[in-house]
């Protein structure tokens, strides 16, 4: 009965968005709303000696200047959300005089208007005792991460195999800190009613906001309500609940009025996470025929001193290619920074940059075509777990992509293709991202008027959750899209995992499917029993992964091909073309999937060529905390991309057979571009971004 799944249904929420009727966190209107502005620490480490609020408090409209000096100690009950680091404890905001990182919130000014609050914030005099913060990646004292991704993994004996390998490559790769920079800023409106707290907060994880605020303020969970129907892009920065959300609630309680707090663009670099700076060393050993004999991949990443953020940096190297001797080692270096977080294909984007560049270096060393080298190392099973892949179509992705970009034009010798000032190069990289699925619940209401409402605490930061859930429900309920309403973004709705890690459709979609099935059979039962129609049928179902994850290794795969032009004199890199071929199980909506893939590829271009958070290591100041100097691609940087999804049937991953595509399309892009730059110029750029001076 599948009719809409697989169809390019336009976004069901598009009319609301393009007419400005979709309400984002900062746009909800409340009577008597006051405005809060954060004062950010202007030292990278140290103690607050004095906060002089007298001038600020004398200004018209100013209601309060809140700091550790005049606010109560908050309960901060233990709370570990799904997305919080296992080791460490969140920053307790305005609870003491310590400054742990540049830009840490040290006070909040509340006023009748935003302008009054901003003005008064400049009048608060703060004296610090500053210390020099330390930034020591990769050489500083490192720790073995706990609780999730293994610090050490090995099979076989990689050192021995490297020592005896016919061919070796040994390369070090650096990726700087990157910030998410979604267009919608973080924003929170908080309103108290006695011990009940309602927040409108930009989030990818509605239930967690309510749970965290309940823990921070010592409230009953049922007394905290989060509302967030729309998210204007997030890329992972709105998975955790950050200090500003607590500050908005704290300020609202302090002044006894609802309070709105919106982060400035600059403040979005100071406490809402980022992709950590990483150092990676990859050593490969191989036969002259290309088969890998050894792989040793080490990674070191920054984290804060109060939390150990870990990500799947070295997951892919363990299963990506067939190799008998593999060692991975993952370390963290705590620095005087705030905690990094998940950002656009966390871990995979960084780890696969290093691995896929190293594979290209090996291909060059062996004089084997880079596509061919990957084909020769295609594993039959996941060798890290000794289980089969639920499905794996990397070979088809590589072959299709090679055809579409006309790979046969590529010359093995770098610098062989030239058009005027431009050196032309082609590069390839594989992509992968694990298929996540977690327990999720959904409720379906079949109304007497023949319409249906789908309710679940999911979010939609742009991929099209509203639309894809509509398609699933329509097919199961036999309804047209205009008769199905999807309601998400509310912590009182049935619980789901965070809207991140490309797991929304696999988890929430499965729950919606189950709830629709249950509602349908309830409807049939009612029809058979001859009961009088007229009341609503409500079905709530929880869907959880079975033991298939134990029997299968589940990942989406893809191949990215880049064609670049490098100005022979000026070092400028321009993309001529890029092809991304992906196999990600069933594609519920090809229009949205294509849009998401293009978006991921553009993000990858940013990682490859532009993005870098500049930190002045003398004091921890971030010098490009704005959209003029933190560079992301503009339209002028992006040619037409070719994004293709292959047909892939995977009966094991989840009832829908979907794998998730948001992260996948980001992975491999930076490596494909770096490899293409090498092919064009003969220069290996192992530290991102690939700026022009590296190619002079």
């Amino acid at each position, binding site marked *: 009965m599948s009719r809409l799944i697989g169809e390019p249904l336009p976004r069901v929420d598009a009319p609301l968005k393009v007419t400005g009727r979709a309400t984002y966190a900062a746009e909800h209107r409340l009577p008597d709303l006051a405005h809060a502005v954060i004062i950010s620490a202007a030292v990278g480490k140290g103690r607050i000696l004095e906060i002089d609020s007298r001038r600020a408090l004398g200004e018209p409209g100013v209601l309060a200047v809140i700091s550790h000096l005049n606010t109560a100690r908050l309960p901060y009950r233990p709370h570990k959300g799904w997305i919080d680091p296992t080791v460490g404890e969140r920053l307790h905001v305005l609870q003491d005089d310590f400054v742990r990182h540049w830009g840490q919130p040290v006070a909040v000014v509340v006023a009748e208007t935003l*302008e009054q609050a*901003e003005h008064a914030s400049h009048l608060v005099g703060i004296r610090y005792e500053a210390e020099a913060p330390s930034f020591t990646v990769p050489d500083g004292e490192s720790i073995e991460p706990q609780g999730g991704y293994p610090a050490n993994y090995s099979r076989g004996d990689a050192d021995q195999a490297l020592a005896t390998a016919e061919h070796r490559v040994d390369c070090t790769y650096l990726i700087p800190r990157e910030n998410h920079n979604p267009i919608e800023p973080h924003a929170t409106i908080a309103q108290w009613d006695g011990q009940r707290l309602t927040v409108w907060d930009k989030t990818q994880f509605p239930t967690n906001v309510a749970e965290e605020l309940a823990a921070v303020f010592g409230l009953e969970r049922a007394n905290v309500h989060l509302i967030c129907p729309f998210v204007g892009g997030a890329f992972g920065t709105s998975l955790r609940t950050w200090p500003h959300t607590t500050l908005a609630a704290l300020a609202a309680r302090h002044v006894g009025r609802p309070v709105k707090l919106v982060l400035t663009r600059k403040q979005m670099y100071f406490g809402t996470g980022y992709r950590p700076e990483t150092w990676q060393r990859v050593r490969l050993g191989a036969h002259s025929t290309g088969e890998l004999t050894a792989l040793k991949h080490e990674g070191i990443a920054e984290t804060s001193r109060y939390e150990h953020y870990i990500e799947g940096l070295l997951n892919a190297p363990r299963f990506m290619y067939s190799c008998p001797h593999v060692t991975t080692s993952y370390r963290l270096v705590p620095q005087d920074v705030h905690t990094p977080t998940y950002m656009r294909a966390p871990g995979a984007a960084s780890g696969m940059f290093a691995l896929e560049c190293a594979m290209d270096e090996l291909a060059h060393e062996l004089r084997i075509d880079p596509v061919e080298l990957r084909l020769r190392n295609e594993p039959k099973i996941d060798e890290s777990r000794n289980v089969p892949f639920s499905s794996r179509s990397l070979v088809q992705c590589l072959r299709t992509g090679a055809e579409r970009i006309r790979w046969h034009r590529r010359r093995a010798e770098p610098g062989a293709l030239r058009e005027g000032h431009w050196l032309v190069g082609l590069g390839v990289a594989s992509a992968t991202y694990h298929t996540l699925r977690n327990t999720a619940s959904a409720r379906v209401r079949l109304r007497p008027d023949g319409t249906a409402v789908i309710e679940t605490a999911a979010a939609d930061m742009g991929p099209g959750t509203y639309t894809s859930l509509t398609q699933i429900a329509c097919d199961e309920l036999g309804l047209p899209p205009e008769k199905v309403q999807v309601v998400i973004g509310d912590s009182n709705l049935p619980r789901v995992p965070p809207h991140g890690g490309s797991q929304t459709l696999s988890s929430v979609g499965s729950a919606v499917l189950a709830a629709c099935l249950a509602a349908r059979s309830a409807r049939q039962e009612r029809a058979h029993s001859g009961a009088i129609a007229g009341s609503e049928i409500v079905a709530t179902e929880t869907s959880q992964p079975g033991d298939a994850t134990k029997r299968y290794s589940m990942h989406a795969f893809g191949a990215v091909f880049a064609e670049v032009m490098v100005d022979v004199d000026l*070092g400028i890199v321009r993309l001529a073309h890029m092809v991304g071929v992906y196999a990600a199980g069933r594609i519920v909506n090809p229009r949205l999937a294509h849009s998401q893939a293009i978006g991921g590829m553009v993000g990858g271009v940013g990682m490859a060529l532009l993005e870098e958070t*500049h930190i*002045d290591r003398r004091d921890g100041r971030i010098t490009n905390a704005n959209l003029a100097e933190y560079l992301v691609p503009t339209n*002028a*940087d992006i040619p037409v991309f070719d994004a293709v999804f292959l047909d892939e049937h995977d009966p094991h991953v989840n009832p829908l057979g979907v794998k998730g595509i948001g992260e996948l399309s980001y992975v491999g892009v930076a490596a494909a571009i770096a490899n293409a730059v090498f092919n064009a110029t003969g220069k290996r750029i192992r530290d991102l971004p690939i700026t022009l001076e590296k190619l002079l």
Partner: protein
Amino acid sequence: MMPFAFQRATALADAFAAAANRGRYVAGGTTLVDLMREGVETPERLVDINALPLHEIRLRPDHLEIGALARMAQVAANADVMRLYPAISQALLLSASAQLRNMASMGGNLLQRTRCPYFRDVTSACNKREPGSGCPARDGVNRLHAILGTSEHCVATHASDVAVALVALDASVRIASPEGERRIPLEQFYRVPGDTPHIEHVLRPGELIVAIEVPAGPHTEQSTYVKVRDRQSYEFAVTSAAVALAVDDGRILDARVAAGGVATVPWRMRHVEAALIGQPLSASTFRAAARLSVEGAVPLTFNAFKIELLPRTLVRALETLETLAVPAL
């Protein structure tokens, strides 16, 4: 943002009166309002001069006159400018974003402040913002900073593209005050930082740029602007070059050369021009002349590459003109 008074001036006399009452002129506001938001600029009174009759672009017999309130987009798309002064149009189109070009005035463009991050961050020391407080850029994040015209007190680049083209083409600014008008070559309008980096130009309090004048000449049609930048839109120059050549029979009769992204002010290069004039139009002429462009350059931690990149940028600009100079067959 600090509170401020706001008023509109509809005649020059109003504007001067308001300026005398601690007013700051504002046109497009694309620099000033931005810096007010950062707390870098704290004017007590803004005088909106947009209603003044200074928007026209006129082709005079011996020069081009650009009203100070003409918008960047308007000048870039002007047919006379495109035909007779292509470097000006190109420099404008390679600047900022379409939105900013629609708002920003030409006079304001010339007066825009540097993008040095330490200048724009009031929690940082900066000799330009707070004389005597120090220059963290010298040993800080300085990839985009200057290698020419710097001092121990300031290494910030001048951010304007079109000012580079105008300096190359011998433009002057007409400046009005209650005492009357004066005309100053743009090259002499700007001041290198020396030990007074907070003084950036020779405008006296209350003076207003009313027009830009660019002389006509055999070289202006053969002019171009090449900009090297990290992305292809909405980004300041890493290096840039404005060049103009008058060529006859394969020989360079006259030349104009200025560089951007590398200096504390738009940087005219007369020694490079001298090395071009009288020489045959050839790659070796270009290279030899361009090499002189970085004489005396002082690199910082992260911008030494500009010493290599600037001559290449000049050569590219000259090559672009060489291609144009070849008569169509």
